[in-house]
């Protein structure tokens, strides 16, 4: 325990706006979280403000302006049909982020639920984990391609396929930390007080299994954006009229030698999103740990 002066200093919890600022300051002090927040925040901002940033339609053809390198007229150049790459990347972000978010939400629901059940109930563990083993035996992208091919190309298909691929992985991660946490004394204390299994899982086990969960979910988001690009690239994602980042790379690859910006620009967009999210996830894990609070004093 530190000195008593310090303890009395942080006595009453601040309320309202002051509390919000204090929390925000604590979050931004974590470098990983700060960089990740800036990177991912700007991606989200550009995605939603996209239509305001450019008045060019992403699908407007201009045969005279084919393969223009980046310039003031076309910030990121034009493609083989003279379409503005800046507009196309911005509009493509919407689809990519939508798919990533959907997959993460499905993972947070089903992956965490199944993982918690498998970790908490030894009887369910064997069944659930053997199913997970079966699904994980396939290489991730191959399984996603298989499912997407069976269901037919659409963005919904991509979401379902990617969820099937990543839910067992998330469940695995959650299960392993649930297995550790459920043996701790405070879980036994809760049971001794008459808490129901549901309460024990929600209040005691899952909150203490959060660190690997957050990192895993930020991983899943980044991988979904990447894998959606792969599915789209293979023609199994969204129909090509809607440009997603994967489709942009797929279309540009034929002209990689002559017009590298067609593949590099959406590629960099994917890289920034994935990097931002991973940093954000790492930072979030540290910041949400109540033990970290003590360091600011």
């Amino acid at each position, binding site marked *: *325990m530190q000195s008593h002066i310090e*303890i009395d200093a942080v*006595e*009453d919890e601040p309320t309202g706006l002051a509390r919000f600022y204090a929390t925000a300051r604590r979050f931004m002090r974590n470098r990983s979280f700060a960089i990740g927040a800036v990177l991912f925040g700007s991606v989200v901002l550009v995605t939603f403000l996209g239509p305001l940033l450019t008045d060019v339609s992403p699908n407007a053809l201009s045969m005279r302006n084919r393969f223009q390198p980046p310039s003031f007229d076309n910030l990121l150049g034009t493609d083989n049909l003279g379409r503005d790459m800046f507009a196309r990347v911005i509009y493509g972000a919407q689809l990519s982020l939508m798919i990533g978010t959907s997959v993460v939400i499905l993972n947070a629901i089903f992956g965490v639920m199944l993982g918690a059940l498998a970790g908490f109930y030894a009887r369910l563990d064997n069944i659930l984990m053997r199913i997970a083993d079966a699904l994980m035996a396939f290489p991730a992208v191959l399984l996603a391609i298989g499912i997407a091919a069976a269901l037919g190309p659409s963005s919904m298909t991509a979401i379902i396929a990617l969820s099937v691929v990543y839910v067992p992985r998330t469940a695995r991660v959650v299960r392993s930390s649930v297995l550790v946490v459920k043996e701790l004394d405070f879980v036994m204390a809760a049971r001794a*007080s008459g808490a129901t299994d549901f309460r024990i899982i929600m209040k005691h086990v899952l909150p203490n299994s959060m660190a690997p969960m957050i990192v895993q979910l930020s991983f899943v988001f980044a991988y979904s954006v990447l894998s959606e690009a792969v599915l789209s690239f293979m023609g199994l994602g969204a129909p090509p009229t809607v440009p997603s980042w994967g489709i942009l790379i797929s279309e540009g690859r034929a002209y990689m030698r002559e017009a590298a910006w067609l593949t590099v620009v959406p590629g960099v967009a994917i890289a920034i999103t994935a990097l931002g999210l991973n940093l954000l996830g790492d930072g979030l894990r540290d910041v949400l740990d109540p033990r970290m609070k003590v360091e600011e004093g």
Partner: protein
Amino acid sequence: MSKVLINVANLVKHFTLATSNPFVRDKPVVRAVDGVSFTVSEGETLGLVGESGCGKSTVGRLILNLLPASSGAVEFDGHDILSMDSAGMRSVRKDLQIIFQDPHASLNPRMTVEEIILEPLYAQGHKRTPELRAYAAELLEMVGLPARFRNRHPHQFSGGQRQRIGIARAIAPKPKLVVCDEAVSALDVSVQAQVINLMQDLKAKMGMSYLFIGHDLAVVRHISDRIAVMYLGRIVEIARCDDLFSRPLHPYTQALMAAIPVAHPRLRHKRDRVRGELPSPLSPPKGCHFHPRCPFAQDICRSEAPQLRQMGDEHQASCHFAEDLPEKATAAQ
């Protein structure tokens, strides 16, 4: 004598070990608790002592129904604990609480102190009301912590303070019996004394009973009314505290007492230490479990297991030679 609160009769817990060898038909069985019987009366503190591995913590877990017992009966306040369904058990649990040994593992690090203390009440279906929050503050003051600490997290406290929080949580539902599972063993000696005194004050204030599990006879003696000595899954002697110390009737009890350090160089008596190691509970010795380490062992000890016999007012011991033992022990010295 006051009313019996909990009556434990012939409690048995066997753990079957998993073996990787599929040809072994008889899987090894650990007899962690092997026929333990005792009672705790209202307002009484029963100490339960023994070496580590003798099954004393398992007894605590069994009477709370946190582990399923292999056989035996536990009657608590008119309820047959071992045969209750989970819903019925849940309602009994508010009267039956536990304090753990490790104050670092027993508090949920994600919860504030207030949430931790009130968790037993929330688990019983109480809603978070201002009255309940005021009660949490009151509980904190009762265990000697300022009420303004209630929004802190456990990592901001020292070991002794955390144990006080664990005590506050245990007494929050106003239980009738608290199982203290090595409740002070993890603390510094100076802090141990404070926590023990706190527990005695609380007992006087709230009129509850303790089952105080420990391995340190000096500490257990300080808080207990009666003491039960356990060895390898069985109770070998049970008596009132002063009676046990003035007239120990089992050689194991005598050996334990001889091992209490004396804080005076000249008064240090010839240590009659227990020889050897605790035998494996996988294959306990035949007859009296203690005979390989007993200085007075005879042939009968190797073949026949002694029963707990009444040796006087509220004094039971399980030794074939309990009557002669005090003389033998003095002769040996």
